């Protein structure tokens, strides 16, 4: 049953998230509010990635490309062209949509690892480009002074108001995900993820649906990219480097592919836990990578994932070290 409501674990997780989100600003801790805001933004990107990967089965590393379009697009349009930040966000989103359509059509014809490799190339290429194009993007220095969003005299530069904005956005993205997942479109995505040929014999426009998922994910990523730089008033290449590319996947996998609330939990863990490890900054990256490596090996389903895979540690040992006999190939 695709309905998530039946799964107690997901319900519990959602309740936990709601409580945390409501409690954080009341706690008075500015740091908590800050990190929760970042969590909301990344969670939105990962929910969109979950739609593309978890539902439609398209492995795309390219979310950061669209985040960069949103981030750098907004920065350039506000700082260099003096546009209103809302307008800049909208225009960047349109640009991202166009880019997704243009790149998506040929890209999504690829299957299996070719798609992963091509989107990985796209993501890393984006990072290289924004680092190299000094004239356009200021390279490694980045662009600062991005104006905050405002409605009337309510400025979203104020942490509390941006907090609310980002969580409302995240809630909307989550609602969109859930509604689409339960609909016939969601079923069609799941069908093409598991049996593309069968789906096409049932009249499903497979390339069209793949593109739809890709573009939707790109739109969300772009808006998050814009919001993020409006929040911190700064954009730089490091926002889109290999660490972030891998982090997005980490968030998705920790939370659990195909789960609904998983991306939010995953984002929360990845954003907040490193902050608790002060003194270990030097080793932060290494620890993060090692945990990701082990996670994929031992519990690929993540915390909330519905896959039946949970592998005992002994399965990791090579055959000649194992005491019990393994029954053939898995």
């Amino acid at each position, binding site marked *: 049953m695709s309905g998530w409501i039946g799964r107690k674990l997901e319900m519990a997780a959602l309740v936990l998230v709601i409580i945390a989100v409501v409690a954080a600003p009341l706690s008075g801790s500015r740091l908590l509010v800050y990190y929760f805001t970042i969590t909301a933004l990344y969670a939105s990107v990962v929910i969109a990635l979950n739609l593309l990967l978890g539902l439609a089965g398209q492995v795309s590393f390219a979310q950061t490309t669209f985040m960069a379009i949103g981030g750098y697009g907004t920065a350039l349009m506000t700082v260099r062209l003096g546009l209103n930040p809302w307008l800049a966000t909208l225009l960047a989103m349109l640009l991202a949509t166009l880019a997704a359509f243009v790149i998506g059509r040929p890209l999504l014809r690829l299957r299996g690892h070719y798609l992963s490799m091509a989107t990985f190339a796209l993501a*890393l290429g984006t990072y290289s480009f924004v680092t190299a194009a000094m004239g356009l993007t200021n390279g490694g220095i980045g662009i600062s002074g991005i104006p905050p969003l405002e409605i009337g005299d309510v400025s979203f530069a104020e942490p509390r108001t941006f907090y609310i904005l980002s969580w409302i956005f995240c809630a909307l993205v989550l609602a969109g995900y859930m509604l689409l997942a339960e609909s016939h479109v969601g079923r069609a995505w799941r069908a093409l993820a598991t049996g593309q040929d069968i789906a096409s014999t049932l009249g499903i426009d497979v390339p069209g649906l793949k593109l739809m998922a890709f573009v939707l994910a790109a739109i969300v990523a772009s808006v998050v990219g814009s919001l993020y730089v409006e929040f911190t008033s700064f954009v730089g290449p490091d926002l889109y480097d*290999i660490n972030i590319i891998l982090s997005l996947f980490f968030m998705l996998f920790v939370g659990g592919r195909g789960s609904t609330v998983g991306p939010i939990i995953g984002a929360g863990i990845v954003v907040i836990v490193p902050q608790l490890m002060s003194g270990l900054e030097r080793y932060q990256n290494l620890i993060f990578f090692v945990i990701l*490596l082990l996670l994929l090996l031992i519990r690929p389903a993540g915390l909330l994932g519905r896959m039946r895979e949970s592998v005992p540690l002994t399965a990791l040992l090579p055959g000649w070290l194992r005491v019990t006999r393994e029954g053939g190939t898995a």
Partner: protein
Amino acid sequence: MTLILAIGVATGCVYALVAVGYSLIYRTTGVVNFAQGSYVMAGGFSTYWFYEIARLRYPIAILCGVGVSTLLGLLLWTVVVLPLWRRRSPSYVVLLETIVFGAIVGTSALLLLGPLPQTLPPWLPGFAMEFGSNRIDGQYVVVIIATILLMLGFSAILRFTSLGRSMRACAASRDVAQLLGISPERIGALAFAATAALGGLGGAMITPAQFTSADIGLSYGVFGFVAAVLGGFGSLSGALVGGLILGIVNAFVGRYISSSYQTVLAFGLLLALLTLRPQGLVGKDWEEA
């Protein structure tokens, strides 16, 4: 001009060694191993450690350096790829894991040996070649010749030995190979070890001519991958062709535009290749390579 060409061909040879790694592993195990570039870094950087810090004699240090990269290859296979492979995990999970492994190797190198680039003495001190008014560092020539020999040797092993035949059988079909009594797991281990050794050797060879540092892994991994796709993913001769072309192009881009654009160009080329002509330039069947 000749200098740029020499640099291009020499680095192209290292790309070719990495590309051969990608293709060999892909054909025998179906895995795309993005940690390939980290072997180059590991080979060069640990040779530096064995030579400068542990004060071993140079040839021994090189051997140990290559040994380290080979061990890393075996480690990757045994601990990471094999369990996933047995479980028939989706290919992108394996890909992701190899990327993470490469990142771990790079970060560890950074923590252990520091961020500064290091270099090594040339293999044939004082050796240099003259082309008119240009003096080319002999190490480049060493790299080129060594690579040619390695590729020839490798090709011979694949074609003429029973081991090579086993590898080609695995490349054709994992299940059929098993029926023939070949252990795909042992072949996989061998492929990972061999490609790691090749990469490590490439790293040790190029370091005297250029520098080595903890972060070159990703860039060699990328360039080697582009070279492999350029030549035709899975093809050995394609790996050499792709590597040389990319090496030369990169050298010119680096000299006349800027080194940071080298990666942009490489990625752009990769994206174009994968979407427009995934079978690459040579795209021959692996068995014929």
